């Protein structure tokens, strides 16, 4: 069978779902961050797929993916430095300990 758009989209959907599961479920904050990275990647896949299948000859989707990657990097950097800061305070990276915002 020939590769079609919907195959790629399905793949990205699955990856996205896995990422969601991870973000909702992991106890380790770094695990959550990694799941978020997965979601980003799924979205990027989507964009490239659309670009490739629906707009051949154009590169707009890819340019957007560049942005996405950049932003993901920025976000990861800030998040990691936050995690480090939190770790310094409570000596743990587990979410159960991080409920100071609770009501």
């Amino acid at each position, binding site marked *: 069978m020939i590769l079609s758009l919907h195959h790629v989209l399905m793949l990205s959907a699955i990856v996205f779902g896995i990422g*969601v599961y991870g*973000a*909702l*479920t*992991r106890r380790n904050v770094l695990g*959550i961050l990694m799941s978020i990275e997965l979601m980003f990647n799924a979205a990027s896949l989507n964009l490239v797929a659309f670009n490739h299948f629906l707009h051949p000859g154009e590169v707009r989707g890819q340019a957007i993916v560049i942005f996405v990657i950049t932003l993901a990097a920025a976000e990861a950097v800030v998040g990691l430095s936050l995690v480090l800061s939190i770790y310094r305070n409570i000596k743990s990276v587990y*979410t*159960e300990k*991080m*409920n*100071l*915002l*609770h*009501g």
Partner: protein
Amino acid sequence: MVDYAYLIALLPFAAAILIFFFGRWLPVKGAALGILACLASFGISFDLLMQVLDGTLKLPHEIHYPWFEVGLFQFEWGVLLDGPSLVLVVAVSGISALIQIYSVGYMHDAPRFKRFFSYLSLFTAAMLALVLANNYLQFFIGWEIMGACSYFLIGFEFERDAAGAAGNKAFLTTRLGDLGFYAGLLTIFFVIGTFNFTQIQNHLHDGNVSTHMATIIALLLFCGTVGKSAQFPLHVWLPDAMEGPTPVSALIHAATMVAAGVYLVARSYGFFLQAPQALEVVAWVGGFTAIFAATIAVTADDVKKVLAYSTISQLGYMIMGLGVGGYSAGLFHLTTHAAFKALLFLAAGSIIHSVHTNDLWKMGSLSKQMPATFWTFLSGTLALVGFWGTSGYFSKEMILGAAYGSHHVLLYGIGCAGAFLTSFYMTRAFSLIFLGDPRERDRFAHAHESPWSMIVPLMILAVAALGLGWFMHAPETLERFFPMPGRPDAAVPPWVGLVALGSGFLGLAVGGALYLGSLTLVGQLASAFAPLHKLLKNKYYIDELYWAVFVRPTGKLAELLAWFDFNVIDRIFVDGFGQAASLWSEIQSWIDDHLVDGVVNGSGWSAESLGAIARRMQNGFVQNYLLVITMTLVALLTAMETFVGKH
């Protein structure tokens, strides 16, 4: 002067008020003011009398002082000067002045001295207002004020229970009569429409009042007389009224208040003339009372009680006189009785003041110790028994003559029997007090004559008692002052008067025989007629009868009603309301605690619970928030899909 006639009543009234409030600072604690006021009234009255006698003042003379209006009806104060009112006003003011002079000596160490004089003046003012009244309203006002004063004065020494009880008895018994009187007044107003005597007289002349109505009115008015003038059956208060000080007995129960009842009949004579049946009732009530009271006086042991029953008896005579058509006779006797009865009471007071007892059996042979009292008392006694030449003789003879002349032969006979008894009991009293051997040595030793302030009035009254008759008995004088309305009497044979005189003498003789010498005969008679004696001594047990039939049941009824009031009405309404109110407040408090506070607490509790539930959303777990976001996202997308549809 006649324009100032109203001062006759007003001066004593003003004196009464001034003495009551300012007596402390007035000379003789106000007595002087009272006496002065009375003397002034007497002066004015006497002057008016003189004016009438020498012709400058024509009678009847009426002065109106309008008072108030109700709708179409006018009510007024007024002065009506005619024969009866003028004579009576002179007598009342004069006697009242003498009694007040007497009281200065008699009451000199009494507590509430000034109040005594205030009441005396008030009383005099009320009587004068009544006598001078030209309408029933003023008459009634004076009547009632006198009743109140009588209550005050009888119960003057209220530290003694007997005095207070006597005052109550007097007031209540006369009140009973006043009920009828009041009903009569209402009927008069309803039927005739005015209270004014002259206008009523005109109405009666014009024949506007039916005989039936006139009878009813007359009988109702007579009820007042029965009460006030102590006729049977409302006579019971007068003997008890002797608990009051002697001047009070003299003024009220001899001269004035008791005479007001007779005066009422005289003033209302127009009604009586048109109601012959009522007149009959009057005559028989009077006659019966006359003899009835005389029988009780025979066995009385207290000098004042003797005089009291004598008063009742003589009032009976007056009323009998009026009842048989002897208008002038009745009023004449009223005037003479005022003089000699006041004299007798004051003399008795003098004796009591001296020997400090009322009991006849403790007195005796006081003639030597108290000569002035002796002679004055004698004058009074002679007048009372109708000894020839005294004023009492003339007036009593006139009454008995009128009785015979109007064909009331039985009443005439009763009158003569009464005259016999009158002489008998007065001789008895006189002998026991003044003659014979002294029964108690120590009292006899201490007895002395009374001071001049007491003796002088006695003397003045003695002169009046003896001489008044000569002034007034002439038919022209009587006609002028007590004009006879209605039919003239039939001719009276002379033996009528002689029989009357004779019965009096007979009484004197029998009394003297029994009581002048040793008293053994008296004792034997008493034991021989023991049941009769006992009956008379206990006043025919009438007081006991009234007590059992009227007073006790009323007391029981009052107790019953009080019980009812306490236990039923108070329970239901007062306690019940209280309990209902407290029950209601308990309910309210329960509502407040459980429902209202429940709402408040409930809202708090629900807020807390909701908060507790909602708090779980804010648990600080970011992943939880993320989950919620995801849920919402999914829900939204689903909703969009279903509702927006395929694109």
